[in-house]
């Protein structure tokens, strides 16, 4: 209430980051098979360009993007395409999705990469297109095609490029390790993005619980001007774009607006690194750093993992699982995705693979809400989750929207602090899904109505045209008859 320039709410969950943050990024031994879903990004599914049995090289394009809002897919290693078909989806439903199965030959033969000259000499549009061709998506979990954001520079005035290294989710340390070990590449990537966006300044925001990363980034950015490394308070959800923008610029992103409407563009450090790789070395996005952690993992650490590696391989590389995990998650414990099995592959947006033990998830059966308002205090968006959930649970979605459902970022702070253990986020996701369905149904019925009306109008028009034609014909006929009639009538008259 008193601090308007800083984000409100938020929580301080136990970090659980120490163990994986202490070890350097390791390499995953190449698994025999890689499973590549065709849709690992927001937008349309990529179209496969290879056939089963084809031999491919590392970095070769496997599937192309059909639209602007999509991303192509490249071979993470050399080998043979074993199959193009249904593979396990990294999704709570456990459904199968379309994907490519690559049998690795272990030779890691690269395809010919076009290594560009000095990217700073090139036009921003060319560079943005190159990032699109490299299949780079938001690696912080948003999986939004990075090039779409880069092309905003041509449309909007971007004052600040915000490099998001806050990594507020518990357990995850990928960005932390990446900043410690590859700080120069990240700074270079950030400068390239600045060049593409024509941004005035770069701010690299890192939570103050990562002193090593802060120091490394400060050293790496020292030679260049207009790069500021900012320590932000460690408070979940600091890594959310809206909260980070508020913290750094003191401005709030307008509701229903985008970051660009306050002159900011946010990129995750992982994405920045991937863009650096694409623009400096021509390497497409075929691997990423993943935190493997959780109470059931023997040696939690970060691994550089080829996209498509099954989670089992990741856990094996970290000393295996000590016991049966109570929950497998892709991503962090706050916003991560429940996984039905260990057979799912790593996708571009996978920040972490967590195997949580029962004692790490103190969730009990839900009790009635006592309106303690802790969720209201914790909500970083200033919503009233208790009223939203009261409406959502009785399927009053409009009522839930009235209390802010549309502004909810699904961060889970409310569920985290709820003493009644009400699964608020679950209700919100349900309500949002139902609203989407309703909207789609409404669109469909609108479309049908329009089509019906159009048909009626067309029929009426045709009918009118027919009538007009008939009338014209009749008139013509009359006209032809007229002289005769005229003559005869004259005769009568006289």
């Amino acid at each position, binding site marked *: 209430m008193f601090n308007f320039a800083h984000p409100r709410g938020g929580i301080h969950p136990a970090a659980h980051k120490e163990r994986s943050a202490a070890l350097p990024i390791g390499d995953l031994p190449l698994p025999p098979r890689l499973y590549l879903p065709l849709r690992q990004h927001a937008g349309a599914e990529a179209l496969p360009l290879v056939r089963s049995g084809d031999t491919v090289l590392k970095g070769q394009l496997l599937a192309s993007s059909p639209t602007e809002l999509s991303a192509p897919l490249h071979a993470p290693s050399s080998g043979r395409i074993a199959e193009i078909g249904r593979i396990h989806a990294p999704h709570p439903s456990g459904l199968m999705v379309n994907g490519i199965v690559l049998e690795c030959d272990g030779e890691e033969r690269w395809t010919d990469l076009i290594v560009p000259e000095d990217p700073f000499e090139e036009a921003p549009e060319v560079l943005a297109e190159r990032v699109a061709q490299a299949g780079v998506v938001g690696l912080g979990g948003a999986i939004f095609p990075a090039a779409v954001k880069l092309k905003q520079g041509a449309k909007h005035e971007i004052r600040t490029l915000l490099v998001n290294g806050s990594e507020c989710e518990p357990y995850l340390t990928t960005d932390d390790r990446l900043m410690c070990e590859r700080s120069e590449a990240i700074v270079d990537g950030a400068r390239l993005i600045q060049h593409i966006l024509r941004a005035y300044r770069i701010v690299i925001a890192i939570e103050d619980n990562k002193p090593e990363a802060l120091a490394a980034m400060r050293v790496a950015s020292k030679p260049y001007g207009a790069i500021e490394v900012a320590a932000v308070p460690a408070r979940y959800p600091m890594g959310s774009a809206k909260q980070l923008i508020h913290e750094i610029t003191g401005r709030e992103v307008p*509701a229903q607006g985008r970051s660009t409407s306050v002159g900011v563009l946010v990129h995750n450090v992982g994405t920045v690194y991937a863009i650096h790789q694409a623009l400096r070395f021509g390497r497409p996005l075929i691997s990423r750093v993943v935190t493997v952690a959780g109470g059931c993992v023997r040696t939690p650490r970060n691994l550089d993992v080829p996209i498509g590696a099954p989670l089992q391989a990741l856990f094996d590389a970290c000393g295996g699982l000590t016991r049966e995990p109570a929950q497998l998650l892709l991503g962090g414990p706050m916003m991560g995705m429940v996984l039905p099995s260990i057979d799912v592959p790593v996708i571009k947006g996978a920040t972490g693979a967590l195997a949580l033990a029962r004692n790490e998830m103190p969730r009990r059966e839900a009790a009635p809400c006592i309106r303690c308002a802790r969720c209201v205090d914790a909500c970083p968006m200033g919503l009233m989750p208790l009223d939203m959930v009261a409406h959502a649970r009785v399927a009053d979605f409009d009522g839930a929207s009235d209390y802010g459902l549309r502004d909810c970022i699904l961060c889970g702070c409310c569920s985290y602090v709820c003493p*009644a253990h009400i699964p608020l986020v679950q209700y919100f996701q349900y309500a949002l899904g139902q609203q989407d369905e309703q909207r789609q149904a409404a669109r469909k019925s609108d479309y049908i109505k329009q089509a019906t009306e159009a048909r009626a109008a067309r029929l009426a028009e045709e009918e009118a045209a027919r009538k007009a034609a008939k009338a014209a014909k009749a008139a013509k006929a009359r006209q032809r008859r007229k002289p005769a009639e005229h003559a005869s009538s004259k005769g009568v008259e006289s």
Partner: protein
Amino acid sequence: MSVDIAAGPFAHDRSSVSRIMLHVCLALTPCTLFGLYVFGWPAINLWLLTCGSALATEAVCLRLLGQPMRRLLDGSALLTGWLLALTLPPWAPWWIAVGGSVFAIGIGKQLYGGIGQNLFNPAMLARAALLIAFPLQMTTWVLPVPLGSVDAPDFIEGLRITFGGMPLLDGVTGATPLGDLKTQLTLGHNAEEILASDFSLMSALVGSIPGSMGETSALLILLGGAWLLALRIIHWEIPLSMLLVVALLAGTAQLYNPEQHLGMLYHLSTGGLLLGALFIATDPVTSPASRLGRLIFGAGCGLLIFIIRTWGGFPEALAFAVLFMNALTPLIDRYWRPRVYGRNARGKPLAATNRINEVKRP
């Protein structure tokens, strides 16, 4: 309700409803122990009876409503009974305790749908009902006679007072400070004189004055309240705005007419105002959820308390003020919500600060 969890978060701060309730009970312990000590065996009987019958009523209601019996363990029924006991005259007969508890839990809470659903604070609802139905028993106050002192009733006498309907002698009864003031003012006495002769701030702070079982010791109530505030189990807004409004109004009134009005210290330290501000008005179920709403709620309680104490028929006023504001809580929650991120106070999206440049720059 059993929900298969498919959505996060898979982390929790390990809080629970029962822990909140037990912390509040723990915070009530100092002033309760003091009350039991100064009012002796009859008070102990009354406290046990009220809490016990609240739990028993809750158990019966849960059974009748087919709700899980483990909800008895969430501590909310115990807390309701406990709070009710603290606001009763310490030597009240047993049926006041039992009747009050049955009313509080059965009608005040379970009839509305159980925990979290009640519109009114159950303990205050029961107290108000008792006060209207049995004004004599509810306003018979005893002078403090600490356990072990010469005048204190022993265990057997205590049972006789609580269960036997033994009439209290005039020598042991006395008026509460606010009740005394009311009487004296109607008799035409000057407020300054009353204050000088009958009121001592020290005894109000320590608690050696007649009054309800738990409301007398201002210091111990403050201690428990401070602990709850430190644990963030109660919010600071309601106590602050409530006490501030009473203090301001009392202070202004005294400046304006010292013959009719007593000062702020007098108001703050008597009549269960602190107990109400820290433990009763802060009941989360029946108070608003937003910060601004809580400030309004507290201020409303304070205003009503001052009005009823000054011009109304009841000297203490807490229960009525809280109940009245409870009724307004849904309204407050509807109209005073926090400002949403990215929206102005009226809920409209903020204006973009960046002009959208449609033309591509060269």
